[in-house]
Structure formats: C-alpha cells, structure tokens
C-alpha cells in the first residue's frame, strides 16, 4: 500500500511538468499581444511596452520563461499577474470559493444521487423509478447554462425566493442554488449509475446467500449491496470532483460567484500566462489527488483489490 501510494505520488511529477508546459505553450501561442492590449483602443507607447515586457519577463525566449516560472514555483512563487498582484493571492481568493461550491455540489450529488439510486434500484419498474428516470433524463438533456438561467429567472426574478446573483460568495445559504445547478448533471448520472448496479447486484449470488443465511435486511442492503454497488459510482465521483471545479465556470458566471472559473476566464482573455498556468496547475493537482483517493477507496470497498 505504502509503495503504491509513493509510486502514484511520483507519477504526479511528470504529469505536473507536462501539463504546465503544455498550458504555458498554449497561452504563449494565443493570438494578440497581451502587453499592447493593456492600452485598449489607444496606441501603445513603445518605451512603456518594452519596460513592461521586461518586467514580466516576456522579452525572454519561451523556454527560459518556462524555466523561470518552474523554478519560481518551487520557491512558492506563482509569479505576478499583469495587474501587479501576486498570482498566489488570486489563487488564494478564488479556490476557497470554488472548492466550497464544488464540495457543496458534490455533497448534494452524493447524498441525493446515491439515495435516489438505491431507492429506484430497489423499486425497479415502480412509479417512483419511472418518475426519477424521466426527471434525470430531462436534467441530462438540458445544458447547464439553460438550467442556471431558468433557476435564476424563476427563483430569483419571478418568485424572488433568492437573490438573482450570489451577494456573498462565501455564504453557504446563497450558494445552494448554484450548487444544485452545478451538481444537477452529475446527480442525474450518479442516480442512474447507482440504480443500474443496485438492480444488477440484487440478483447476485451473494445477495441470495445472505438472504438464505437469514441476515437482517439492513445488513444485506447496507453492507453487502451498498458496498458492492458503489464501486463504479466511486470511480465516477472521483473524476467528477475535478470536473465540478473546472466546470463551475458557467455556473459562476450566471450567479456572479467570484471563483476559479471567472478568474481563469478573465486571465485567458488577457493572455495572462502566469495566472492561467497557476490556476490550471492547482486544478490538475486536485484532479490527481482526488483520483488517487478514489483508487485507494477501491481497496476499502472491494477486498479483492490489493495494491502492492
């Protein structure tokens, strides 16, 4: 187990270098000159442009820039955005908000999704099963931004149950609707996935054995069925947490949540290399760690899986 974790952690290094280099290259090749763009409609003063270019290290070859960035990173320096603020500050502001939003959405999706999945799996073919199937189908087929706009329009503007946008990005109460919108799609998937595996496992030999042994229902469903049914669900959930964080951009835009998505979007628009790479790097790290946790969870859920 320990060796496995160590190996996985070591694997992160090349992945980390690869992604940062790739993103660095991509930002670098974006059309337009970010420094000249700072002047807007006005003509850029060449002396000022040259000085700013030097200040941000943009006058150096691409690979030198990347090297400087990497070495800075290991010293804990994420570089500076064009606004003169350290990127570390931007990350420090944006991530708590998005992590909060994503975890909230994640919690909703896990609790409600798994519960609905269990329910429908056990009551396969019944009315409640059909109803949930139709509802999840709707959620899956409607794009997130439509869902967001509808929620904002009806809940915020028409019925005035919530404020149309989030007034305080750290307030959990106000994040409820954005979190539901953000988690809705995954919730539908989790429900359907759980339902299918539950329905399948209900007919498994070990379930019949458990029943024949006279185990109480709570143990049969809670331990035997749940544990086995959750393996594919956990795989999905693990990758989903990363998706929620990166995918929050649409929801954040609609509800004016000041999180990662918007910071990233703005940075891409202004070709702010250090900011884009910094944020994406943290996203990649989160993704890597969460998928590692998922893989470790397998072993807990399924004793047949052993890591050496």
């Amino acid at each position: 187990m320990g060796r496995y974790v160590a190996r996985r952690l070591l694997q992160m290094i090349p992945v980390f270098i690869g992604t940062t280099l790739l993103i660095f290259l991509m930002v670098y090749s974006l059309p337009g000159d970010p420094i000249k763009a700072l002047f807007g409609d006005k003509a850029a003063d060449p002396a000022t442009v040259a000085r700013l270019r030097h200040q941000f290290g943009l006058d150096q070859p691409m690979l030198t820039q990347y090297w400087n960035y990497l070495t800075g990173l290991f010293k804990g320096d994420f570089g500076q955005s064009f606004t003169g603020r350290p990127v570390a500050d931007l990350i420090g502001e944006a991530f708590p908000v998005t992590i909060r939003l994503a975890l909230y959405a994640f919690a909703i999706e896990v609790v409600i999704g798994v519960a609905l999945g269990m329910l429908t799996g056990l009551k396969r073919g019944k009315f409640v099963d059909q109803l949930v199937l139709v509802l999840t189908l709707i959620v899956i087929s409607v794009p997130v931004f439509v869902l967001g706009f509808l929620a904002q329009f009806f809940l915020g503007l028409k019925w005035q149950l919530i404020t149309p946008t989030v007034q305080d990005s750290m307030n959990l109460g106000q994040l409820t609707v954005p979190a539901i919108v953000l988690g809705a799609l995954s919730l539908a998937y989790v429900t359907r996935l759980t339902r299918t595996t539950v329905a399948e496992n209900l007919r498994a030999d070990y379930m019949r054995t458990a029943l024949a042994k006279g185990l109480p229902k709570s143990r049969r469903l809670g331990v035997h069925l749940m544990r086995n049914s959750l393996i594919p669900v956990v795989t999905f959930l693990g990758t989903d947490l990363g998706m929620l964080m990166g995918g929050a951009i649409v929801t954040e835009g609609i509800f004016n949540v000041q999180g990662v998505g918007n910071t990233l979007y703005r940075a891409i628009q202004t070709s702010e290399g250090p900011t884009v790479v910094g944020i994406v790097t943290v996203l990649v790290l989160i993704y890597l760690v969460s998928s590692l946790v998922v893989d470790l969870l397998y072993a807990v859920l399924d004793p047949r899986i052993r890591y050496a």
Partner: protein
Amino acid sequence: MRGAKSATWVAGAIAVALTATACGGGSSSGNNAAVDPNGTYTYYSTEPQHELIPTNSNEVGGGYIIKNLFRGLVDFDAKGKLRYQNAESVESTDNQHFTVKLKKGWKFHNGEPVTASSFVDAWNWGANAKNAQLNSSWFEPIKGYEEIHPKEGDPETDKMSGLKVVNDNEFTIELSKPVSTFKERLFYDAFFPLPKAFFKDTKAFGEHPVGNGPYQQDGNWEHKVQFKTKKFADYKGVDKPKNGGVIFKFYNTDDSAYNDLVSDKVDIMYKVPNSATSKFKADLGDRAVNEPYGGQTTIAFPMYDKEWGKPEKAKVRQGLSMAIDRDTIVKTVLKDAYDAADGWVPTVVEGYQKDACGEFCKFNPTKAKQLIKEGGGVPGNKMTITFNNDGGHRDWAEAVCNDIKQNTGVNCAAQPRPTFQQVRNEITGKKMDSAFRMAWVQDFPNISNFISEQYRTGAGANDMGFSDPELDKLMDQANAAKTIEESNKLYLQAEKKLTETMPSIPLFFDHTLGGYSKNVQNVKFDTYRQAIWTDVEVKQK
C-alpha cells in the same frame, strides 16, 4: 430534429411571455421620496485591472473608482462644460505657457494639504519611463517629456523641465508647442495630484489609495467583490456629495448584473447587456436611461492597401457610405440604442455641427451606385467588415453589409474575429485588406479629440494609415488658435474635409443604455456615460 427545434422555439416564446408579464407589474418609483443624505448606493462595475494609481489606470473598472477618490484641476459638468475644481485658475496667453493657481484649503483624505508639489511630483512620477505607467503619454505635450521618457533606455532626469513650482499654491507649465485644448486635457486621471504617502510605498497605495476627491476609501478593497467608499467630510469641490458613499460592486457578466438591477440588488448600471436592450425599458419603466454620449462607430479602410490607397477610391467609399440606410438600421436592428451618424463627431461633443458629413452620410442608393462606378468599383467587387465578436457588433455589421449588398451589388460579408485583442493585433500590424470596425469614445468632450487622434498623420489611433497634409495643416492651425471657439471652427473645417477622402465611413453615435433601482433617484449620466455620482440621492428606507 424538426421536433426538437420547434420545442426550443416554444420554450423561447414562453420565456419571452413570462418576462413581459413579470415586468408589467408595479413600476412605482415615487420620484420625491425622503432622501437619506448618508445613504450609500451600489454601482455596477468590474474588478479593476490594475492597482489604483491614477497614472496607470486606463480602463473603466479602476477609472470609476479613481474618478471618485480624486479631483483634478478641472473637470466637466453633466453637460460637458469645463469647470474649475482644485484649480482657482489655469491661465495662458499663448496656449504654450500656463500658470496654475490652486484653491486654498483642499486636503487629501489623510489630512495632508494639496499643494503645487502634489501635482508636479505626481506628474513627474507618472511621466518617468522607469515607472512604465500606461497613461504616461498624456504628459507628452509638456516640455522635457522626451528626456524623462526616452524612446529607449533609462531617463537621465526625474523631472520635466516644463513644470515649475512657484509657491505652495501656484505652478507653471510650459509645453513644447502650443496645444489649444491642453486645459481641457487636464481633467484626465493622469493629471490628478498625489499625496506624499504615495511616493513612499506605491504598491501599498495601489491597494489603499488616498485622494482629494469627494469620496474616500472605506475599509479594504475586497477584490473581485466590491470597493467601498464613503463621503469625505473635508471635500472642498463644487460637487459636494448628496449621498453617503458609493459602493462599486464587481460583476463577471453584464447579464447577472442586470438581473440584480431589476430586483434592486444593484442600484445603478451604466450599460445594460445586449440581451436586455429590447426589454430594459419595459423592465425599468421611467428608471431606464437611453441617451447619447460621446462615442461613435465607423468602418475604416486600410489606406496602406494597394487598391484602397488609390486616390479615386475615395469616390467608392463615398458611394458605399450613401448605400447604408443608417436610420432604418438604427430603428430596426439596433432598437434605438444608437443614433444615425451625420458626421464623425457625436452630438453631445463640443464643436459638433449638424450634417458635417453632408450628403455623403445620407441614404441615396442611386448616387451610391454612380459614385462607386466612377471610382472604378470596389476591388474584386467584394469587401468584408472585420469586427471583434466579443463586443456585440455582429448585428450592425451584418445589417450594414446587407445594405451594401442590396443597394450596390457589392459582395459584402461581415467577418468576425474572436477577440478584441486579435482584431487589434491585425489592425496595428497593418494586415487589413478591407473595411474594419473603428470606434472612438471621447477622452474629453471636444471635437479635436475625435479628429486629431484618428485622422492626423501617424496619430496613435490612426488605424487606417491615413495621411492628408492639408488636414494636418488645418489641425496645426487649430491647435495654435487663441481661443477654443476658433480652434473648434478650424476642426470643423477639418471634419468636413474628411468627406473628400472618406478614409472611414461614419455609422452611428453611441448611447448610454442604463438604469437604476428603486432605492435611488436623481440619477443622471454625463457625456462619458458615467452617472453623476455625487448627485445621486438615496431614498430613506
């Protein structure tokens, strides 16, 4: 497929109907409610792109905050008329040597008195090439700018020779050559005074700016959320605040801000999103604002292009201009969010004259065809209008192209580029081979700003590579004129002369499309499409 499509249409119709009914109810904005003189209100804005230093802030997010924390020597009132603020007088006999006298008793928010050095030191710092300030070019007319801001390398001095402090309340400015509108230019953020604290730690100042304006910072700058200000009790300007403070609230998208406006969660918005232009009147009733401001839109041509640079193509451009039915486009496509342009200078700008463009901006398809023929036709009988797709320009670009196609038979296509940055890159790299969007929003409300910044040979925003020595001469004369009236007259001549070569085709004058919530009243917008912040009255709750 077909079914799915009609379903979306039905959904769309329902949404529209709901919007309409939702907004039909109660627009009771009692106009003379009791006013709370200490009440604060929220103002729609975006997170500033730079630290809050007047010489480095050139975009609206930071600009709006700075304009409220600082007052310069002069500024413009709601009608666009120049008035003195921190200056008692700015005198000159030759438009080259100026004497500035300050009003006594002005203070910065930290209690430090505003003196002549507060201005001179700030300007020298802003012009210094070492500090790489985005607004440094505003100091270019001042004598000694070349030394403090050399084209390459470090400056050898940190002072402009044209600035001299006489005493605490007086200083003189010498320009390298006469500029008739220099006094007008002094309104701009770059010319704001700075307290001594700024020079000690500019970075800290950028987070906690200290000015001499009607409002002072209240608490910390909450990045990407809001910037709070409160009334400054010791403010000495003519525009004392009628409210307790402005809170600049930052939004990621116009749409989410607009929804907040409709439900009174943000109090003033100076631009409604494109998606709301057709419904904001219904949503806000008499709290909707739709009035012209100092901005215009044209399509410009690359005069450096082999074909378009030929002198006879002036006729073709005149013809194309006459093929565009501006009035109809404004009414139908643009829903009265613009005015049809009758020249290059917007109506609200000093020096504007009706029909400066004459018959060439009037719709006349017969003459259009004739002129295009006389000029040898459009190269290859096809043209494009390039614009950035992130600014809501597609509608008019397509409408203009349609008019050209229908009325002249020229094959015209609207050609979007994904971002503003990319378009700018192509334009400044002189890579255009057909028409492109060119717009100007006033730096200050005077005709000179609209003509000289875009049509002088080699001017900063002369994207066309256009050059007309006679026009340059007219502008030189205008700049040396003794009075502003005389200068305006000469600039008007220059504007009329533009019709002869028609390097760009005037299309529209821009409008402020804004609105305000039920919490505030007495909301007016100036020619910069900024609310008169100090005049806003907050209703008692």
